[in-house]
């Protein structure tokens, strides 16, 4: 059997693929952060809590209304997105004239509240969530056993990420968005309702987080703290990629997932820290991030 650095190539391919799956979650989450940041200039610390809400709302739809995974996938993002829009209208919109750090602090506080309330209600042991029947099981790819669900996660997140990129970079709506980022006053003058656009954008970013939450529910523990630590890793991903471009955040997300996957083979003890180490290196060499521009 051929080996690379003492690891069989087959196992290596398996790990690469798995890395790609983790990368899907990083990409979805950092994409949401990037979209929000682009227009609102706010780092959404509530993102992890909103990811968690996605999984919980999916659970509730299933247990209270008997709606399955596919309905959840369809309904949860708009539901959680709507709560996000409410937050934007009632709170965040009051902060746009202030230092951006206040937005970070507000969303941090909101994250504490949301996570605390869910803990009160559901405890911390987590909730059962079953795999959709259509996607259970898996197939043998020769070099590894790939559960169908994992394959679905990769495909779905790729489609969503590229779709988002296409809308923002290639459509008229996207051009308004980008213009509003540059100069909101001017865009307003052209008769476009900028505040409404901002609200919808925040809602969309939150919906992406919730979508990631639904996709995570069948394979990760569904508990109130599921997003709390993850969000810090995603922050590091965002710092590495730089917030400059949508495509950048997608690529960094997938790329770092793969790097993390490989670390799990060669030096598993460091797999939690590897992203932070990369962040340190990138900061030393290219302070604006891989795809960012220094502002």
């Amino acid at each position, binding site marked *: 059997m051929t080996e690379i650095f003492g690891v069989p190539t087959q196992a290596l391919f398996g790990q690469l693929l798995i890395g790609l799956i983790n990368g899907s979650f990083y990409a979805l989450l950092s994409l949401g952060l990037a979209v929000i940041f682009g227009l609102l200039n706010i780092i959404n610390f509530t993102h992890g809590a909103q990811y968690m809400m996605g999984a919980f709302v999916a659970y509730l739809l299933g247990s209270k209304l008997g709606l399955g995974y596919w309905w959840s996938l369809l309904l949860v993002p708009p539901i959680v997105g709507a709560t996000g829009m409410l937050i934007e209208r009632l709170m965040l919109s009051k902060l746009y004239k202030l230092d951006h750090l206040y937005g970070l602090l507000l969303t941090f*506080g909101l994250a504490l509240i949301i996570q605390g309330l869910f803990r009160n209600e559901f405890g911390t042991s987590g909730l059962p969530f079953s795999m959709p029947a259509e996607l259970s099981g898996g197939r043998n790819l020769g070099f590894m056993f790939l559960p169908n669900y994992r394959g679905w996660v990769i495909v779905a997140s790729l489609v969503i990420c590229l779709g988002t990129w296409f809308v923002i970079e290639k459509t008229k709506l996207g051009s308004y968005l980008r213009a509003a980022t540059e100069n909101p006053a001017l865009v307003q003058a052209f008769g476009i309702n900028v505040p409404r656009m901002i609200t919808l954008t925040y809602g969309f970013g939150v919906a992406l987080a919730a979508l990631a939450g639904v996709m995570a529910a069948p394979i990760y523990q569904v508990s109130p703290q599921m997003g709390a*630590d993850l969000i810090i890793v995603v922050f590091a991903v965002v710092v590495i990629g730089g917030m400059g471009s949508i495509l950048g955040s997608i690529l960094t997300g997938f790329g770092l997932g793969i790097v993390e996957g490989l670390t799990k083979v060669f030096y598993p003890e460091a797999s939690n820290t590897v992203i932070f180490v990369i962040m340190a290196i990138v900061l030393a060499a290219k302070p604006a991030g891989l795809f960012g521009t220094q502002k």
Partner: protein
Amino acid sequence: MPRSQKIALALMAAFFLLAPLVLYPVFLMKAMCFALFACAFNLLIGFGGLLSFGHAMFLGTAGYAAAHAAKVWGFPPEFAILFGTACAALLGLVTGLLAIRRQGIYFAMTTLALAQMIYFYYLQAAFTGGEDGIQAVPRGMLFGFIDLSNVWAMYGTVFVIFMGGFLLVYRTIHSPFGQVLKAIRENEQRALSLGYDVNRYKMLAYMLSATLAGLAGSTKALVFQLASLTDVHWSMSGEVVLMTLLGGLGTVFGPVVGAFIVITMENYLAQLGAWVTISQGVIFVICVLAFRRGVVGEIGNFLKKPL
């Protein structure tokens, strides 16, 4: 020093000298440690405009270093505290070189990520004892003759350290260095064009803040005779932001008041369980939306005096 601040300083000193007659001394020592921690943090955000979301790494690092030195190497308490503080300063140097290159939100995220990396390191490192932490740290004899296991001796020591640290922060803010720092906070480009080496000033402020946070951390380790993961976790970084925000960003006495309130809540809401984090979150939201000057800032504004 303006008269209003002199009075406030005297009041604060008198409070911490007399309060142990009524309040529980261990509680007050904890409050003083966190007050110093928050003052160190405030130096950076309140006067340098840099929001660090990873300050727990300095508190925790110093705590572990001091506890290890006192317990395993048998350092006397004054050297254990110095050693812990020095370790925090060194960490400040290393992380500062990386983080200071970014501003605003990026700086916050970078410090958060660096602190998380440090947290994972301590979790895995053998000398920290993982979840168990370093326990039963001896307080020892200060300068060879003051027995710190006596609660009043310990209280006096913490009081002196706290007041010393507080006055140092005060001095720094009102020195020419502090003025330049404020100028950078207000308008970095302008400070740059006036010929100030902006990054060097920021770096110095960052390191000073790290060092003082370390002083608080080492002292805390001796007070509680333990060092644990709690002090390195990101929620601790969040807590110090809360203390400073609640007390008043950029005020001299704000962090002390904020720390006192937060610690009191943590202590007396302990019976209520889950509501501690929720109430902290609510305070965050209220402070940001409606109360950005914080308690001390509002009082100062009302009295029209700097506090």
